């Protein structure tokens, strides 16, 4: 069953003023339990606005959102419960850190959930371990940490709440390649461990291609396409027409196809490409 579902969701900014703008335009989609969804779209395509609807930070001008089949706005006073079930990590989340120690900052969300101290402690230590923060860091001030570590503290704060749906908005923006890989590895490990649904907004096609089951492409506030990863990247030309990019390896294989070397499949990760090429070579009797 779909864990998240929207029906004709529309959001209009500053309605009735000269600055009026439709940020989300009749979006209907379904996200299944345990999926990893990549969200793409150029700046201003409405993706950040859309994800803020999923945990009730924004209320659509019209349309509905269902979490586990229940309208999240059915009972307004329970919207906080929705936020515990749908965790949202904003862009540059390190700017929301405020506690004196790393431990306290990771615990903030759990505390708001009303968990007891023992459970909080268990979750904080476990999450910190999972995300690769050494235990001695927990008693330090978060403001002494490096940028990448701060980012991980902020993400851990939401992960510790163990939301059924975890949404991350550009979790690796502004990090170096190593910091980026570490965060992606942690998210992957988290998904394997908990089986929770994950939504990732990213500009890096390589990263999305590597581990998204399905990709949602947004354009001008509406869904451009929402399909399996390989199907989305098979529409490379249309995607580049709306100002987005496909992974480099996909481009290489498209060029190969033009030159007459058709592998018959869409390629979007380097590992898969390697596999295909080796197979082809073996077919031709070349030892490798």
């Amino acid at each position: 069953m779909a864990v998240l579902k929207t029906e004709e969701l529309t959001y209009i900014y500053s309605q009735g003023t000269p600055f009026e703008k439709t940020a989300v335009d009749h979006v209907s989609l379904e996200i299944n339990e345990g999926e990893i969804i990549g969200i793409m779209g150029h700046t201003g395509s409405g993706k950040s606005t859309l994800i803020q609807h999923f945990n009730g930070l924004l209320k659509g001008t019209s349309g509905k959102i269902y979490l586990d089949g229940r309208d999240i706005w059915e009972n307004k006073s329970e919207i906080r419960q929705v936020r515990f079930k749908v965790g949202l990590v904003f862009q540059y989340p390190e700017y929301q850190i405020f506690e004196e120690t790393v431990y306290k900052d990771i615990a903030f969300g759990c505390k708001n959930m009303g968990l007891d101290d023992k459970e909080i402690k268990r979750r904080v230590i476990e999450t910190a371990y999972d995300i690769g923060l050494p235990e001695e860091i927990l008693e330090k001030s978060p403001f002494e940490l490096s940028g990448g570590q701060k980012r991980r503290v902020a993400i851990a704060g939401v992960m510790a709440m163990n939301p059924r749906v975890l949404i991350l908005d550009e979790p690796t923006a502004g990090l170096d390649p190593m910091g980026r890989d570490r965060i992606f590895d942690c998210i992957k490990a988290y998904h394997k461990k908990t089986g929770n649904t994950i939504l990732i907004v990213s500009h890096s096609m390589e990263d999305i291609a590597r581990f998204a089951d399905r990709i949602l492409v947004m354009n001008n506030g509406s869904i451009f396409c929402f399909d399996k990863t390989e199907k989305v990247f098979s529409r490379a030309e249309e995607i580049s027409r709306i100002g987005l990019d496909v992974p480099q390896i996909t481009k290489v294989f498209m060029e190969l196809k033009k030159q007459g070397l058709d592998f018959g499949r869409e390629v979007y990760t380097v590992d898969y490409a390697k596999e295909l090429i080796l197979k082809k070579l073996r077919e031709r009797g070349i030892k490798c």
Partner: protein
Amino acid sequence: MLKDITIGQYFPIESVIHRLDPRFKIIMTLIFIIMLFTGDSFICMGISAVYTLIAVILSRIKFKMFVKSIKPLMPFLIITAVMNLFFVSDGDIYFHWKFIKITSDGINVSFLMIIRIILLIIGSSLLTYTTSPITLTDAVERLLSPLKRFKFPVHELAMMMSIALRFIPTLIEETDKIISAQKARGAEIDTGSLTDRAKNMVSILIPLFISAFRRADELATAMECRCYNGGEGRTRLRQLKSSPRDYIAFSVTILFFVSVIILNIFI
């Protein structure tokens, strides 16, 4: 919610009021404020209201924007009116209960106060709505320049003012983002008990201060990189020039001001 704050906003459209010399606009606004507080009869308020109305129409800014600027000050307006209503005890008594008296003077005074404050808000928003922050601070600098003789740091003051104005929208946006981020972590900001809300203010204020300091530091570095060293010997790209238009507007303002004073003496 925070996006509704319109104080200090500027609407870049074409109008007579927009084209007035900002120095004159500041002085006229000051005269207007004095005018509001000298007049204490309905006729005087009526004259001030006509003056405001003319300026608003000439500015071509939608009336809705002025309503928006009054809204956040509504509680203040109501409290002032109620205080005046209950505690002015001269005139005919209409209603008496314990220490509360409602008198004819009380009603008059509170009505005058409401009109006065509303006009005050409209008049001062008109200044910022029609003048870009840069020209506004330029004008302040020019108006205060005689104080330089007394070693008063006029340029520095104007620079501080323009930086402050420039960062209001940025900080509002930042606050909005931080509030959303903390709400996403389950913080109760617009719901929950008063103590909970007060506690959660900390989770907003600390990140906000940190980012404000960071921005200030970055700005200072950027300014130094461009060799900023104060107002000494600095020339301007756009010189402020007054035109006949400004003198006409100024004369009209004086005319209104004088008529309010005269009416005030004779009525």
